[in-house]
């Protein structure tokens, strides 16, 4: 028989003013298992806690029920209190007779007292069924993985590496740098993107704690916090990295020309290439889909010209498995596929381009050497029209959210057009102008006032060609007037969307993603860089539209969280997790898809059965991954799965107690 002690708190008059606490304490004495019951003015106070500790010792209690405020308030307090008295923390149960009773039934004292009795009775019934639980420790591998080598990934890696942790950056492109490498100037300071990014790229590549794993992708993630076993596919580069010096002869001699993705298809690259001149690592890869040798078996020029013999056509994709303690995901964004906006003529008219194209056009190392020229005929445009919110804030055709960066980069583009082209005119169609951020509003005002950009509030209904002009037809909703502008070039500010394969990556790692496939943070306010999977953190635009400063800030935040995890050699885990009763489990696996943390696997056990050794499947809960939601327990028909501290029997005991 268990010996339960009940402690009823008056909380001054907060509870005592409504609930007849001495009476509750008196009645509780008759509840099954209760050997001691007392009320006190302030249970959480030093004397109150002493009272509990004393009673545990003197009354030889093995369970404690505290009826007071919400456990969300003082559960840790009372757990510590009983622990100090030598009792397992989980032998303590609380009954919430303040928030759930005295405060909400202030004028019904008798009924509130009756309710308090019931709540205590339920807590007693549960406490009797409570089992001692211990926090477990799991080892933490001091190595971090950063997925995505854009500015966010680089920043997170540098912060982690500087804190003394080994970091691997996995980047699917041949070079790190990401979208920022393609950008010309950065708002609101207009300093050159490459000038601030490339030193960081160099830092990352030369840092003793950082390993770059470029042209590679995450294939599989197993394990759990502190112990992720990640399989990385290193795609065949066809170039031996250990031999190649990056001299570039192969690239200059390669006869196959391909549209350059980095240059937004505005110029050509070779089949053996680095995406851009400052690429890191600055060693080429062979694009096998476009290489004459791989397509026809003939050519082999690169191999012939490489005096070091670095070209290796026989390379194959390589898979490496590495254990990491923490993972930072920084896979960034892509541009919204705005071909759904047929009315803007993208694809039909070469002079209708996106903001990212424009970045390459104004970039000094871009295809036009920084001269703004129309892709169609190379002429310098005079009238440039910008259309904002292409795909953003459009529930019908695009995305419901605001892409956040477009207002600012469009303003930046507008100033650059005006600066670079004399007598040019800039028109900007907008829905709203949103310039939250340090120096942003000032920048926008300058764009309008000093650079004379014409902001037209309204949407464009159609872009069509007339002669060599593009006619942009829209409405100025402030003047309620139809507007038609003869443009030489139209720039679309397309929405930011996550990488096309973001949801697949999320499934591999076991994190959540929203309806737009942005990864979901553990809490939008209080855990913005954590995910629901412990040890996995988010940085940059993969979590939602962000500009560079925000991405960098979040990257550092994610790195700080990861550092916190990696700085210890082992970590404590919550003991409230699901457990499998293997003798009952039939191994049907219905629980497996229920778990949001992929914490349940099926494993084979062997046992003796009627004199024969048999093998059978049973569910296996990974204590490192399980977060204790208990959804799996309901999926288990036979009740082989149960949640510690909220077991079927404990909940049934509470239900039964209520109904006595």
């Amino acid at each position: 028989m268990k010996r339960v002690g009940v402690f009823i708190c008056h909380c001054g008059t907060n509870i005592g003013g409504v609930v007849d606490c001495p009476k509750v304490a008196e009645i509780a004495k008759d509840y099954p298992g209760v050997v001691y019951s007392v009320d006190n003015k302030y249970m959480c106070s030093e004397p109150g806690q002493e009272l509990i500790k004393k009673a545990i010792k003197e009354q030889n209690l093995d369970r404690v029920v505290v009826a007071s405020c919400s456990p969300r308030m003082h559960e840790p307090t009372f757990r510590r209190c009983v622990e100090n008295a030598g009792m397992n923390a989980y032998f303590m149960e609380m009954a919430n007779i303040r928030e759930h009773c005295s405060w909400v039934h202030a004028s019904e004292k008798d009924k509130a007292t009756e309710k308090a009795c019931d709540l205590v009775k339920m807590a007693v019934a549960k406490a009797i069924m409570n089992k001692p639980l211990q926090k477990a420790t799991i080892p933490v591998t001091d190595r971090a993985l950063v997925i995505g080598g854009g500015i966010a990934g680089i920043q997170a890696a540098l912060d982690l590496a500087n804190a003394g942790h080994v970091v691997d950056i996995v980047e699917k492109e041949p070079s790190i740098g990401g979208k920022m490498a393609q950008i010309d100037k950065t708002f609101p300071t207009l300093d050159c993107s490459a000038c601030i990014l490339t030193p960081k790229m160099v830092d990352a590549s030369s840092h003793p704690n950082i390993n770059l794993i470029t042209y590679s992708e995450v294939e599989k993630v197993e394990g759990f916090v502190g112990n992720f076993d990640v399989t990385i596919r290193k795609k065949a580069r066809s170039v031996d990295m250990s031999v190649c010096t990056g001299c570039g002869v192969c690239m200059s001699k390669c006869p196959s020309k391909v549209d350059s993705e980095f240059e937004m298809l505005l110029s050509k690259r070779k089949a053996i290439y680095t995406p851009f001149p400052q690429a890191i690592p600055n060693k080429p890869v062979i694009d096998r889909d476009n290489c004459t040798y791989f397509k026809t078996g003939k050519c082999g020029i690169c191999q012939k010209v490489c005096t070091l013999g670095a070209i290796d056509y026989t390379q194959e994709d390589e898979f490496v498995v590495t254990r990491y303690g923490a993972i930072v995901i920084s896979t960034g964004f892509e541009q919204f596929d705005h071909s759904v906006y047929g009315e803007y003529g993208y694809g039909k008219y070469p002079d209708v381009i996106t903001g990212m194209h424009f970045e390459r056009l104004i970039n000094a190392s871009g295809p036009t050497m920084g001269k703004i020229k129309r892709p169609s005929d190379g002429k310098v445009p005079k009238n440039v029209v910008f259309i904002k919110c292409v795909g953003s804030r459009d529930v019908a055709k695009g995305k419901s959210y605001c892409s956040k960066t477009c207002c600012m980069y469009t303003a930046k583009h507008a100033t650059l057009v005006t600066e670079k082209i004399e007598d040019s005119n800039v028109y900007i169609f907008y829905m709203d102008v949103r310039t939250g951020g340090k120096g942003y509003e000032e920048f926008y005002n300058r764009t309008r006032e000093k650079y004379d950009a014409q902001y037209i509030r309204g949407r464009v209904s159609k872009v069509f060609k007339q002669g060599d002009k593009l006619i942009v037809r829209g409405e100025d909703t402030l003047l309620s007037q139809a507007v038609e502008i003869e443009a030489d070039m139209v720039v679309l500010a397309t929405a930011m969307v996550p990488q096309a394969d973001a949801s697949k990556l999320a499934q591999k790692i076991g994190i959540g993603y929203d309806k737009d496939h942005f990864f979901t943070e553990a809490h939008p306010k209080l855990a913005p860089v954590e995910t629901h999977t412990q040890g996995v953190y988010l940085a940059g635009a993969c979590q939602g539209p962000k500009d560079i400063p925000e991405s960098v800030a979040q990257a550092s935040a994610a790195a700080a969280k990861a550092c916190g995890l990696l700085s210890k050699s082992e970590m404590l885990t919550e003991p409230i997790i699901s457990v499998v009763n293997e003798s009952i489990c039939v191994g049907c696996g219905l629980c497996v898809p229920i778990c949001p943390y992929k914490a349940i696997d099926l494993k084979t056990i062997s046992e003796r059965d009627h004199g024969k050794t048999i093998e059978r499947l049973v569910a296996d809960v990974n204590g490192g991954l399980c977060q204790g939601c208990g959804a799996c327990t309901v999926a288990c028909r036979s009740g082989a799965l149960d949640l510690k501290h909220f077991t079927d029997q404990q909940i049934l005991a509470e239900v039964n107690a209520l109904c006595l």
Partner: protein
Amino acid sequence: MLVVLKAKLKDILNTLAEEYKVLVPAKIEDTSKFISYKDNVDIILDENVKLSPKDVFFPQTEKMYKMKTVKTSMELENITDEAGKKLLFGVRSCDMKSLDCFDQVFLTKGYIDEFYKNKRDSVVTIALSCSQPMQTCFCSAMGVDSQKAVGADVQAYDLGDKIGLEAISDEGSKVIELIKGQLTEEGAEVPQPGEFYLKVDADGVSEKLNGMFESPIWDDVSKKCLNCGACTYVCPTCHCFDISQEVRGENVTKYRCWDSCMFGEYTQMAGGHNPRPTKKERVRNRFMHKLNYFPDRYNMLLCTGCGRCINVCPVNLDITSVIKQIKEAE
């Protein structure tokens, strides 16, 4: 013989209902069993009821006593059966024979089960002979006379459109006395039973089983068994029970309820060991009990040939086939 027209049967039952709580075989909710007689019940006389009358004497769930914890002590409270005599009308010979088996278990060999005894003592029985056995019947093979029940207070005979009545015991005479005015004396003969469809020869089966505990036939017989408890629950002779309790805070009610040796947890021990782990052991036990252990102890088979198990078995595991198999086994 005293007779009454079947059409006038209800008049007699009405008279008896003044003195007894009368239970009659009737159709109810797509099945049939013994229920309290009322004017509007759908009495069946042309075949036996699907559920045996054993629950009158041995309810599926039977409260035994109550306990109440008061502080540190405990109070016990007996549960008394409802008062008054019951009259069970229309019990067939097979089911009367099953009462004989029950009496052996619950009232002999130095142990008396009070719960059973109280109920048994309060019931007067009017047995009814069978004019035509059902297809699944094989009572004669089990030594049961379908025309003359054992232990009945009154024996009734199915005489076509009439029922003949004959007092057997003193209690039976009292019953006849009550309704004498509604009966007429006729020179009727005890009818001959009809032909049985199932041909069973159970002679010597008990003895033969003595050496057959390890016989391979149990593997064969048990394969199709689903280990449900249908056969045991409809069986008029199966009498296993489990004791459990309903706890409502300080109030505890001890009760017993039917259990079935077909169930896996029937022999499950607290430590996890199960001496009858598979259906083979369970099926063997059921037939050994009926045809060997029970005859050994009480000198009668624990099967009355009522055929109910054959009727309900989901997989047609047929006891008559099993008997045949036992007899044919080497």
